[in-house]
């Protein structure tokens, strides 16, 4: 079995597992962990468009995640708009915001860009923190009732949240896949590898980086809406923090930067480590959970810097070229 076929089989199996999981496993804790994994994966996949494919390492993506959360929540609280619509409104606002932020920041490269995005994220957090309309430091709360499909609030059953999170992840993956299959995806990878060469081939760096950040932030914002609907409380500290931004990049790195499914794998792994170390050691009050969590991250980063997918590629090198044989095409020039 070639690696491509094997990969597809595993992906289908994973999808099946994700779809059936909450029906088979009825423990709310495990169901909840699965939802967290899906949500974190969605963030990582969204982040990956800009940080992975285009190679622009953003450490301020929580600003967009938070924008999505705040926009849909505000629309729901003020105008009774269903979060289903609010989710897209939030994505739109976040994408617009990302263009305003991206345009100046894309003058910067490498570490300079990463640092600037941290600064932007912190500014957004500080501004929202002092913005009364958005509840300031207290944040905004959504009511527990009414529940149901349109208000996107569900009471005890975890199933709706699970399938919304799964759907959103699949949607994000689909967008990601479409990007990689279009010229935009090729351009982004070209920009990441050799920006000057890309320009010489007619690729406008600013334009395609802006495409990437708009898509990436819009999708991250949709995740923000889901967060708001699940936790029913959003505040600057939990939806706009740099820690959250870093987490988005962490899952991508852990799984494999610039790959379609890398962030998903990373999210499953990181969430598992996080939850297990906290559940296992958190109650001691001695910081053991942080020691375990930190240590595991360092070990993975040091011993597997290219992520889980990188490890798989090393371990199981492709035996045959993955791409299909080239179709014959008419020759324009003279044969050599």
């Amino acid at each position, binding site marked *: 079995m070639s690696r491509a076929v094997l990969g597809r089989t595993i992906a289908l199996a994973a999808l099946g597992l994700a779809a059936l999981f909450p029906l088979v496993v009825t*423990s709310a804790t495990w169901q909840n962990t699965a939802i967290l994994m899906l949500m974190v994966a969605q963030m990582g996949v969204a982040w990956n468009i800009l940080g992975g494919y285009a190679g622009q390492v953003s450490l301020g993506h929580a600003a967009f995640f938070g924008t999505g959360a705040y926009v849909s929540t505000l629309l729901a609280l003020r105008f009774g708009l269903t979060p289903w619509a609010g989710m897209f409104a939030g994505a739109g606002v976040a994408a617009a915001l990302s263009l305003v932020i991206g345009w100046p920041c894309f003058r910067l490269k490498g570490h300079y860009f990463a640092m600037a995005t941290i600064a932007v994220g912190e500014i957004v957090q500080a501004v929202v923190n002092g913005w009364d309309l958005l509840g300031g430091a207290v944040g905004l709360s959504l009511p527990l009732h009414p529940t149901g499909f349109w208000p996107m609030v569900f009471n005890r059953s975890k199933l709706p949240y699970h399938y919304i999170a799964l759907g959103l992840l699949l949607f994000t993956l689909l967008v990601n896949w479409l990007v990689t299959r279009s010229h935009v995806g090729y351009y982004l990878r070209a920009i990441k590898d050799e920006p000057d060469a890309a320009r010489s081939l007619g690729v406008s760096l600013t334009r395609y980086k802006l495409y990437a950040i708009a898509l990436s932030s819009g999708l991250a914002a949709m995740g923000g809406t889901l967060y708001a609907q699940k*936790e029913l409380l959003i*505040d600057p500290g939990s939806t706009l923090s740099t820690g959250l931004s870093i987490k988005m990049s962490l899952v991508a790195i852990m799984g494999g930067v610039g790959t379609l499914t890398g962030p998903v794998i990373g999210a499953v792994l990181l969430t598992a480590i996080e939850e297990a170390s906290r*559940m*296992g050691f958190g*109650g001691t009050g001695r910081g053991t959970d942080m020691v375990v969590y930190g240590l595991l991250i360092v070990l993975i980063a040091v011993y597997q810097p290219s992520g889980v997918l990188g490890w798989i590629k090393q371990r199981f090198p492709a035996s045959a070229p993955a791409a299909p044989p080239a179709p014959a095409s008419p020759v324009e020039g003279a044969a050599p």
Partner: protein
Amino acid sequence: MPVTFRASLLAAILGAALPAAAADDVVIGVMYPLTGSAASTGLELKNAAQLAADLINGTDKSLALPLVGGGGLPGLKGAKLRLIFVDHQGSPQVGATEAERLITQEKVAAIQGAYFSSVTQTASQTAERYGVPFLNADSSSVGLTQRGFKWFFRTTPHDELFVQNAFDFLRDLEKKKGIKVHRVAILAENTEFGTGAARLQEKYAKENGYEVVAKILYPPKGTQLTSEVQKLKAARPDVVFQSSYLADAILSMRTYKDLGFLPTALLANDAGFNDSEFLKTMGKDGNDVISREVWALDLAAQKPVIGKANDIYKARHGVNFNGNSARAFTGIFALADAINRAGSTKPEAIRAALKATNMGADQLIMPWGGIQFDENGQNKKGAGIIVQVQDGKYVTVWPMGPGAKDVVWPLPAWEGR
């Protein structure tokens, strides 16, 4: 990865998955911030809650509080209280996740937590969804008991009462000493805790006819407070109302001294100013700070059980109770009382018992009228006190009755202390 390490992690994961508890125990989930910048407080709260459970499970009856020394809950044939502590890391999302785990995996009868108002909010939401009683002993955000929840109970008074107390105190003091306060300034951390208090303080100051000459919100986790103190100095307030956690409380006091800022009085909003570490660090410079509180050791003069409980706590952990730990201690007693009367660990029965709670003042180590919940789950009989640091100790100065010390007013100069 070392094998033992992997094994222990695996054990932890499996351990979390296994159904909890010998059937006889009454399991209560307790959630506090056990890592992060509030971990120090979280640990104190954990210790106090555990002590309460141990006293109830033990057989030593020398402490004159209900249920103590009964070897468990008599209403459940001597079932022991078992507390499961979880770390919510100060994150509302983790709070909700952990509450759910406590309810569904550990099958807790009730939950107590979570110190941070934001985490209390999401965690109690989860409890509400599942129909499990959530007792909050230490979050003072007013909104928590305005959500119309059926399963949420709060023993501590909230911010509005505390702020009211502070202004009642000022009024009483003006009357008693024949002085007049005109200008007040507000300094608060720009977080949920600080801004909430600042808003109320501003409102009450205006209602009471004081002039608010400055309202300064500073970002948390800062490195210096120089600009804030300069601004305060320029505003020349008589009284400064301050809401800060420990690091900023220490930093601000030092900056006051360095920059020579001396208001007539400093009225702190609990938190950092009442932390065990505060006076140790500030030494004489911490003297004469006034703060709102819910507990003080000198209350033991009128209520010996306070001193007795404190002795036990101090013997175990080396420090005195403070307002936070005393409230966590009391929270467990309130839960135990209700579960004992319910005679069952069924949530509905416990909730009914909580609604019917009527603990008297003598059954608590708090200076409260007792514990009795209103229709929103708020304790009607809670009360605040005002303490002042005098000679390195917190002494009660309000309510001004028997046992209350006289207030040192104004603040003496920094030099020559």
